């Protein structure tokens, strides 16, 4: 029997997908060729006739590669939006929305004099698990892998960290008291604790849901 995997792989060289995905396509199509070939042999055709019958299944290999590429690539883009960007943005919008609401409340005259820790940071940390849960849940519902669910859940603090780093490195923000104590406190209150709170909410959705199949 011909080596159908090598045959398909050679003809789908223009397929520009992740290696694992290319391998899956090659294995699947090679299996199809194998089945056609064996079916023809079982009907009494010679090996060369059976091979010819199998080869008739694809006339334009470039066109097939292009069609598979188009479908799979569109899928990848949509999947990334569904698995990562959209859930991440929901998590980020919820976290930032809550932070703004808490800041607005803390600025009301009746709350003046209370510490920002009491009025903003602590309530925000209490509410953050819901934001992490929303991001990870939406990501899991879209069928995302573990890493994407984790990133979607932690998206608010990832953005905060990146933004903070950019502002400090470009010196758009200058730390007025560059002692280790203030820096550490900022990192703990702005990154570590919020990340822990988000992770707490995301944790239940980091387990893979069983795929649903129609009865």
């Amino acid at each position, binding site marked *: 029997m011909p080596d159908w995997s090598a045959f398909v792989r050679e003809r789908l060289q223009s397929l520009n997908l992740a290696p694992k995905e290319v391998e*899956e*396509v090659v*294995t*699947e*199509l090679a*299996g*199809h*060729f*194998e*089945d*056609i070939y064996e079916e023809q042999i079982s009907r009494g055709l010679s090996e060369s006739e059976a091979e010819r019958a199998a080869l*008739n*299944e*694809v*006339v*334009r290999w470039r*066109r*097939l590669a292009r*069609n*598979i590429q*188009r*479908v*799979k690539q*569109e*899928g990848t883009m*949509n999947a990334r939006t569904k698995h990562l960007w959209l859930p991440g943005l929901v998590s980020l919008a919820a976290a930032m929305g809550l932070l703004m609401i808490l800041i607005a409340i803390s600025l009301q005259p009746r709350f003046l004099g209370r510490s920002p820790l009491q009025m903003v940071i602590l309530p925000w940390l209490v509410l953050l698990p819901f934001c992490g849960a929303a991001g990870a849940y939406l990501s899991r519902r879209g069928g995302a892998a573990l890493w994407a669910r984790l990133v979607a859940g932690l998206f608010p603090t990832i953005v905060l960290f990146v933004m903070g780093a950019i502002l400090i490195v470009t010196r758009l923000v200058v730390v007025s008291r560059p002692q280790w104590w203030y820096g550490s406190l900022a990192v703990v209150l702005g990154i570590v604790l919020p990340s822990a709170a988000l992770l707490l909410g995301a944790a239940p959705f980091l387990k893979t849901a069983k*795929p*649903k*199949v*129609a009865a």
Partner: protein
Amino acid sequence: MTKRIRSKIARGSAELSILALLAEQPLYGFEISKRIEEKTGGALHFTLASLYPMLYDLEKRGWIAGRWEANHAGRDRRYYCLTPAGKKELAPLRREWSFFFQALDRLAGVTNA
């Protein structure tokens, strides 16, 4: 009717054919093309080149899901099954095609041809 229908209608009906077949049981690519050919008396035929981009497209839309399993000969094949979203899509598709054929019949009397 054994003559192969090579038309846009045949291509357009591909989705319905695949979803309807997978509603009965999970099948892999070769089986899908065989069943379609057998059930339509050879009127519809999917080559490998036309079948797989269609399967990947349906999978991308979440109407079918593929998983690797050993077939009766013990070889790994990618079996496709209908997802709940695909099942939901099948009923209106059937109605649309039924409506289309009824309309065509009223217009051109295709049933009595």
